């Protein structure tokens, strides 16, 4: 049996100085743009629609359909904004992609912009990844110099400017409307919808916001066709995707495979769970997706199957945890993340994550009560679907799913008065845990 891997996006990553224009062109880069510029923009939208490409940022909204929501051209500007603010715990696909193959993104941006009639595209990249920001800046510079961007792209008469913008480090700016506010120089908090970005997005103009991986998938669809793309994956989850394995796994990294592959197959390629250990729980798509356990090893990793199994495909960020890991501790860390990153706009997320964090830290330290578990579940219920945007929903996923699967472990913390796990065992390196932090004190003075 041949390898299930389908390197498309990652195909050129092993080339010498893969991030340069020369290396990218040696691998056939920018052929898609040349072809696209000879086609009608509407054909390109139809092509991507036909390919079944769904948004790779987590929600899985059909990309071509999103493009077609733009109102008819009124002569004013319309924008493409690439969401490169990858910051979900566990998610690590866009950053290696942009690091190794920034031109793939630039080519995707150029094709997409041409398809939707945009003359100024923006890449909103997470500010902490300075090295990626620099590679993107350099790639855009190279592309301008080579006539791939700027005035009269490749002699086609089409003009396109690309601005790479570095965010200032807020998870919420991965939410598309908060990203647009941030890009406009405002405080990054989600906007009221409607109007949706397709109608009034960046600077209140029609705007398409797409994930890096979605845009980077476009050149391949243009050169190889929609049928090729549909040949990969499942009927409703077509194409290839990057699967990011991390945690207690022998060979962590990016595995590019058709959607619908299972964790069992991916683990086989990754050399399995850490030597001498067994799978305890995992996230299918980052920390905001409900946890899976070993019983979900054979769930096909496509939107429908993962959804049917009670979670979400998300960003295919597969964090693997073996039996040495305290689930309460893992969930408490994630919850601290959400409490820290909640933008504060709406009550459920702002106050709810504060409360969840406080309770979880207490439970983790062995100072919880049985009632705390009911409070955790009820607070999650009061956040889920009540918050302004999906951040609050995501914050509840690890808590509700972990209590569902590992309630007895939570209770062990409570009845035992301490965490039953030796934290040094779950470390992948020599690790002497620090003293438990004191839980007394006055709240959130961080």
């Amino acid at each position, binding site marked *: 049996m041949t390898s299930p891997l389908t390197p498309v996006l990652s195909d050129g990553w092993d080339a010498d100085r893969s991030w340069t224009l020369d290396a990218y062109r040696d691998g056939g880069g920018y052929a898609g743009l040349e072809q696209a510029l000879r086609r009608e923009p509407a054909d390109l939208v139809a092509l991507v629609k036909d390919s079944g490409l769904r948004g790779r940022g987590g929600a899985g909204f059909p990309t071509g359909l999103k493009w077609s929501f733009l109102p008819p051209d009124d002569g004013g500007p319309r924008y493409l904004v690439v969401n490169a603010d990858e910051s979900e715990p566990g998610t690590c696909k866009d950053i290696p992609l942009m690091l190794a193959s920034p031109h793939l993104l630039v080519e995707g941006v150029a094709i997409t912009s041409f398809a939707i009639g945009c003359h100024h595209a923006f890449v909103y990249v997470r500010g902490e990844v300075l090295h990626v920001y620099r590679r993107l800046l350099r790639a855009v510079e190279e592309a301008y110099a080579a006539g791939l961007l700027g005035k009269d792209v490749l002699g086609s008469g089409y003009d396109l400017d690309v601005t790479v913008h570095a965010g200032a480090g807020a998870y919420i700016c991965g939410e598309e409307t908060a990203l647009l506010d941030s890009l406009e120089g405002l405080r990054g908090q989600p906007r009221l919808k409607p109007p949706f970005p397709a109608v009034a997005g960046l600077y209140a103009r029609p705007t398409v916001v797409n994930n890096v991986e979605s845009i980077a998938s476009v050149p391949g669809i243009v050169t190889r066709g929609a049928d090729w793309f549909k040949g990969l994956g499942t009927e409703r989850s077509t194409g290839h995707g990057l699967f990011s394995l991390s945690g207690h796994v022998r060979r962590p990294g990016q595995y590019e495979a058709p959607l619908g592959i299972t964790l069992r197959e991916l683990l086989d390629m990754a050399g399995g769970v850490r030597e001498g250990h067994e799978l305890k729980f995992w996230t299918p798509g980052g920390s905001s997706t409900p946890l899976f356990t070993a019983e979900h090893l054979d769930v096909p990793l496509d939107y429908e199957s993962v959804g049917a199994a009670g979670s979400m495909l998300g960003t295919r960020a597969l964090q693997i945890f073996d039996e040495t890991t305290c689930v309460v501790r893992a969930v408490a860390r994630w919850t601290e993340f959400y409490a820290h990153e909640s933008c504060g706009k709406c009550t459920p997320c*702002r106050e709810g994550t504060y*409360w969840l964090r406080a*309770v979880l830290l207490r439970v983790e330290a062995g100072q919880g009560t049985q009632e705390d578990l009911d409070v955790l579940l009820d607070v999650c219920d009061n956040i889920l679907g009540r918050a302004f945007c999906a951040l609050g929903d995501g914050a509840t996923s690890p808590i509700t799913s972990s209590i569902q699967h590992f309630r007895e472990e939570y209770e062990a913390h409570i009845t035992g008065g301490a965490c039953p796990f030796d934290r040094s065992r779950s470390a992948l390196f020599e690790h002497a845990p620090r003293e438990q932090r004191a839980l007394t004190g006055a709240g959130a003075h961080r």
Partner: protein
Amino acid sequence: MTATTTTGPAAAGGEKRPAPSDEVTFTIDGIETTVAKGTLVIRAAEELGIQIPRFCDHPLLEPAGACRQCLVEVSAPDREGTLRPMPKPQASCTLTASPGMVVSTQATSPVADKAQHGVMELLLINHPLDCPVCDKGGECPLQNQAMSNGRPTSRLVDPKRTFPKPLAVSTQILLDRERCILCQRCTRFSAEIAGDPFIDLQKRGAAQQIGRFDEDVLGFAEPPGDAPGADVPVGAAIADESGATFSSYFSGNTIQICPVGALTSAAYRFRSRPFDLVSTPSVAEHDSSASAVRVDHRRGVVLRRLAGDDPAVNEEWITDKDRFAFHWQSAPDRLTTPLVRDLAEDGTRGALRPASWVEALELAGEGLAAAREAGGVAVLPGGRLTVEDAYAYAKLARVALGTNDVDHRARVHSDEEAEFLAATVAGSGIGVTFADLEHAPTVLLVGLEAEEEAGVPFLRLRKGAQRHGVRVFSVAPFTTRGLERMDGTLLPAAPGTEAEWLDGIADGAADGSADGTEAVAQASQALAAEGSLILVGERLASVAGGYSAVLRLAGRTGARVAWIPRRVGERAGVETGTLPNLLPGGRPAADAAARAEVAGAWGVGALPAEPGRSTAEILDALAVGQLAGVVVGGVEVSDLPDPAHARRALAQASFVVSLEVRASEVTQAADVVLPVAAPTERAGTYLGWEGRPRPFRQVLESTAMADHRVLDALAAALGAELGLPTREAVQADLARLGAWTGARVAAPDLDALEPPAVEPGTAVLASWRMLLDAGRGQDGEAFLAGTAKRPVARLSAATAASAGLADGDLVTVASDRGALTLPVAVTEMVDHVVWVPMRSPGSAVHESLGAAPGDTVRIGSAGAAAPRGDGRTANEGEQR
């Protein structure tokens, strides 16, 4: 049961029922309702009497959807028409009703009820349980809705978030971040309504807070309170969003709309409990808008004022002056008994002593009768009167004193203005309204700085500019912060040249190709649009030909004219005849038929036919003995164009009767002083600039008498009967007069005057009154005074340079009469002009210079730069 209601402005009026396409029919809690398209579910529910709890929602602010308290369960038909439940509860404050939608509130949906209880519990986990000491306790939406839609106990056992408290946003506004539930009403008000954002969200998550603009974070070097230049408050304040020191005339509204006790005022903080207060709806006395307010008092002491809800006038907003400046009514210098002046032993003027009403009225009657014979008695009622009082002064003058020498204008005025008022304002009823300000295509301001001199009309104009694209033009020497916030266009006019500019605009409208600047051409074109307005301020009286030019421009463009004076009683005076050329109801005093009509209604033989004198002429006549006596109402000598001359005139008068609330300079000149009731102690009717009657009730019990009642008694002492002892009697008397149907006074048509040349070392004086200044109506309110703008002198860069002045230097502005010294704020403005505030601490223009806007003054350096952070400077012209 099925009830059908209709909401929304489109539905007003039976005939104008909107086409069905403008309506949406849907269901709330099983009740079918029809609303205008675009109506929010929370509003539609209100119409049905269904109260959905909410915090961030405010009907006059854009929806935010931040607090999530108003969640409801919603189903909506899909494309096939099958009703499908939405997967999540929806915020009813952001959801517009759609046809066939089915909404279930907490009353019928356990999901909505649970969601609301959940949000309420979350709002309370970090909220301090300090309600017993909180100003808001007892009238707190959070407290109330926690009782109605919350759990009885909290399940939080972990520590609460705390903040140091309070943060002083300005001398008046205090922010307690612990109590804040981050609904953003205050920040949205500041950004959307007032346009002076000063506090905003900072940080995130549970650490998110409303806060001051923090220069430490964003690298602004200028520390607050030390910023140079103009638009800076007198007292300490935080920096606003731009890094400048926060200054707002409307910040008190944020306290009122705060749904918790996070924003409080220094004046009211910890002073009372809402449930101890008695509330009376009333009308504010500080400007010609006569905004609706609510006066709260406890045991005879007014403790605070809040904005009333009057959609036709001030919506739900008032100026900080209307909100906080009420201590003047109970100031220590209140007059409580009549005073009479005895002769000293040597036969000269003696001192005032308290007297009975009987004695005081008798002496006043005798004195006035003697003066009437000796040359005549004039009446200066002042510009702050109710309709009832103004009418009594007008009638007293004609019936008891037999004169047309009556003028309420205690400010710069002109005969041209009196003609303008008689021809276009008097008896015209409600013309231009606040709603018109919001919806006019174009508004031209002349002689009117809307934010400083009007307040609430500024907010309405800004709303129009923001929401309905109203184009604002202003004929003024520079672009004020207020004009900027209305996205307005400046027509840069030196004082005295306004009439020329207006004629220029009129010519542009006539031939379609205006000479001069681009802005004039734009204004010409824009004013021709139907429904355009010209708003005229009282300051135009200082410009010869100004009012005439306004009428010429209105005639050419078809724009309607509204006169927006500063004081609350100006329009009432025009309507009731406290002008020399006007009798009540807009009747020309020079018209024999009008006089006969009034005389008939009043049951007197004849009214005086001799033309009356204006304020300036009355003072001149008193000074030279042509007039012997004067009855003075609420006139502040310092407000008059030439206070020194006015003092001389009052001193020369053989007999002065003063009707006042508080002791004033007129008291010192008076022979008999008759105390009158402050606005809270009597009922009455103000007349707003629109011509809209603004009746108000008596707030406090008092034995003090309103002016009209005192005047009725005074007339009796003079042997005349006014028949105005009660408010009802005044209104009946007014009603008997009815409207004037005869000819009106001809409109003035004076040519614009060529302004004098400006010599080196001199400049043309520009000036207007600031909303917060040295006016006596703001006495006793130190916290409010701290939010007034620091007085500066504005000069263009070229004018400053020619006088050897730089930003921050002290400039002396001088006339032959005196001088005043202020720090320079170099401003982009018309050259050869110096602007100073008209009556602010350290800048009393009339008092120090004896000059009025348009006059030429000398400018020169007064030495080194002023020490920063101290707006007050040595002032050789300081009065009193």
